[in-house]
């Protein structure tokens, strides 16, 4: 079967981990790794993995005779805003791992099916990828007036970009909880913990639920969703069964379900505790895989 071709723009930690994941794909072949620094370690790592590299940026990529079907952008929001229209003009589908959010937010088990032919999709945030499937699992059974997520990550796995603009994480994730997770109102919280040895990514999802509803149906939907995320993030697990709390006046008379998750990374390139980075590269690889399948399936 013909594989779709792909380029990764941005040879940092995320780009390198993504390359490792995509090299295991049956549907995507990464042909190019693109950077801007000839001395880049990431480009050297990609060459060692048998991928053609260039430090002359997207200009070089778009000047080639053969263009990729897919491009994964793991640079910055600023760079992607400049690159996105050029990819679209060249007919390349873009999977955006930056906070630029030009295309629709995508979380694979929730809404990839409707976005599989979009020219540009955005991978939200690490916390969003870890928690929105659960919000969606609950909101598919009962109305969720309010959903709140708490993402705890190791300080070591929070890069300078995240640290310089942490509001972008909370605001983007909150919005995606509403748009993709289908909660009427969303709130996101991120905590950096410096403990050594580093803590594995943890996520807690709280959803308001009606005072009277079928807890078993909600729990079954959550378990089912966890299994679907495990298809591309094997280390995605529930720490305990979903916890149901009785209605309270301060919760506008709603009851609550709380879900406690752990995200252990695959350790492809990044350390396993950095489940936050792993889940976003794994989700991006999953999107690429299914986009490729849609493309090759359509032309077959």
């Amino acid at each position, binding site marked *: 079967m013909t594989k779709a071709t792909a380029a990764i723009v941005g040879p940092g930690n995320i780009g390198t981990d993504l390359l490792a994941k995509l090299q295991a794909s049956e549907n995507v072949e990464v042909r190019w790794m693109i950077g801007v620094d000839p001395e880049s370690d990431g480009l050297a790592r990609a060459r060692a993995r048998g991928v053609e590299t260039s430090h002359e940026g997207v200009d070089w990529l778009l000047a080639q005779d053969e263009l990729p079907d897919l491009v994964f952008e793991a640079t910055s929001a600023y760079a992607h805003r400049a690159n996105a229209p050029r990819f679209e003009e060249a007919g390349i589908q873009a999977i955006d791992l930056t906070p630029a959010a030009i295309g629709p937010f995508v979380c694979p088990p929730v809404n990839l099916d409707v976005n599989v032919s979009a020219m540009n999709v955005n991978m939200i945030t690490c916390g969003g990828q870890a928690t929105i499937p659960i919000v969606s699992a609950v909101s598919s059974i009962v109305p969720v007036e309010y959903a709140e997520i708490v993402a705890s990550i190791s300080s070591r796995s929070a890069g300078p970009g995240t640290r310089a603009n942490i509001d972008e994480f909370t605001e983007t994730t909150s919005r995606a909880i509403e748009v993709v997770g289908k909660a009427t109102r969303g709130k996101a919280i991120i905590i950096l913990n410096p403990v050594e040895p580093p803590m594995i990514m943890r996520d807690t999802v709280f959803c308001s639920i009606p005072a009277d509803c079928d807890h078993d149906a909600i729990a079954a939907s959550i378990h089912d969703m966890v299994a679907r995320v495990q298809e591309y993030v094997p280390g995605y697990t529930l720490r305990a069964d979903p916890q149901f709390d009785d209605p309270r006046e301060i919760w506008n008379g709603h009851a609550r379900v*709380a879900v406690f998750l752990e995200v252990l990374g695959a350790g492809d390139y990044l350390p396993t505790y950095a489940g936050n980075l792993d889940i976003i590269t794994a989700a991006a690889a999953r999107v690429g895989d299914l986009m490729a399948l849609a493309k090759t399936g359509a032309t077959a």
Partner: protein
Amino acid sequence: MTTVSDIVVEEPTKDSIRITDSTLRDGSHAMAHRFSEEQVRSIVHALDMSGVEVIEVTHGDGLGGSSFNYGFSLVDDIKLVAAAVDEAKRARIAVLMLPGLGTVRDLKQAHAAGASVARIATHCTEADVSRQHFKAARELGMETVGFLMLSHRATPSKLAEQARIMVDAGAECVYVVDSAGAMILGDAQERVQSVINEIGRDAQVGFHGHQNLSMGVANSVLAYQAGARQVDGALLALGAGAGNSPTEVLAATFEKLGVPTGVDVQAALAAAEEIVRPMVPRIPRMDRSSIVQGYAGVYSSFLLHAERAGERYGVPAHEILQRVGAAGYVGGQEDMIIDIALQIAQERDMGDLAAAGVR
């Protein structure tokens, strides 16, 4: 010839210390974030009359803290800030915010409601997440204070390096914050000293103490002696864990030391006794759980959450807190309290099964 009577002996004037009162912020933890607007007004009025210059008013976890994880506020923060601003004749109103929870947008709303002091709090090793908030606060024309939480978890030199990051980002004062009430005397003084050595005259240094091991006031005095010029207190010690250094005790102690605070001791005592005491369902105290917090270095705000989880899952709160300390959880990770309670409950079930001979 000079006679003894000609010599005017001048007491060397001591530097003053500014007491920021946090009854309406740290105290919000002890009130499960249920302050009413009337209560805020009467406490602000009393503090203002007693001469307190800065009064902090926010959900215990800062702007945006109203949530499942930390507890929902009875009244919206911004409404309470506006009421406090309206009530205060001289005092200025401060707000707390934790990057990762609150945002610049929240800060702007608080500023629009009249708050003029922005206190930006991070875990003691994560100061660099506060840069965008200091920048925004300065652009709004707010006075800026940095808060290095759980300072006992960083060495004095690490803390100094983190304080420098905040000062460079725009903090006009950086606090050594003993969120767990875990510092014993020298622990506090060395950290304050180290921060002062690093930032010199670029910014002031402050100290925020808790009473879990009954060191709040003593540590505050040592912080002053090392050069800190701002300290936090709360009337009746109303705050997380065993509570904060009581504002009225700080005022009395510094007065006896000849250190001007601008706070009238009698008025502060009256405020604590007559205004705050009648409205508090449970006065913070050193009990098994809060002492364990100081002893194990656990974020003080975890106390009521641990008690609630303990009740819900039938495990002792102090055992949960001990485990939280061992895991090294930081401020904001209240969700992990439920996680730990579930774990302990599960271990007990397994233990019961094992005791019954089940394999």
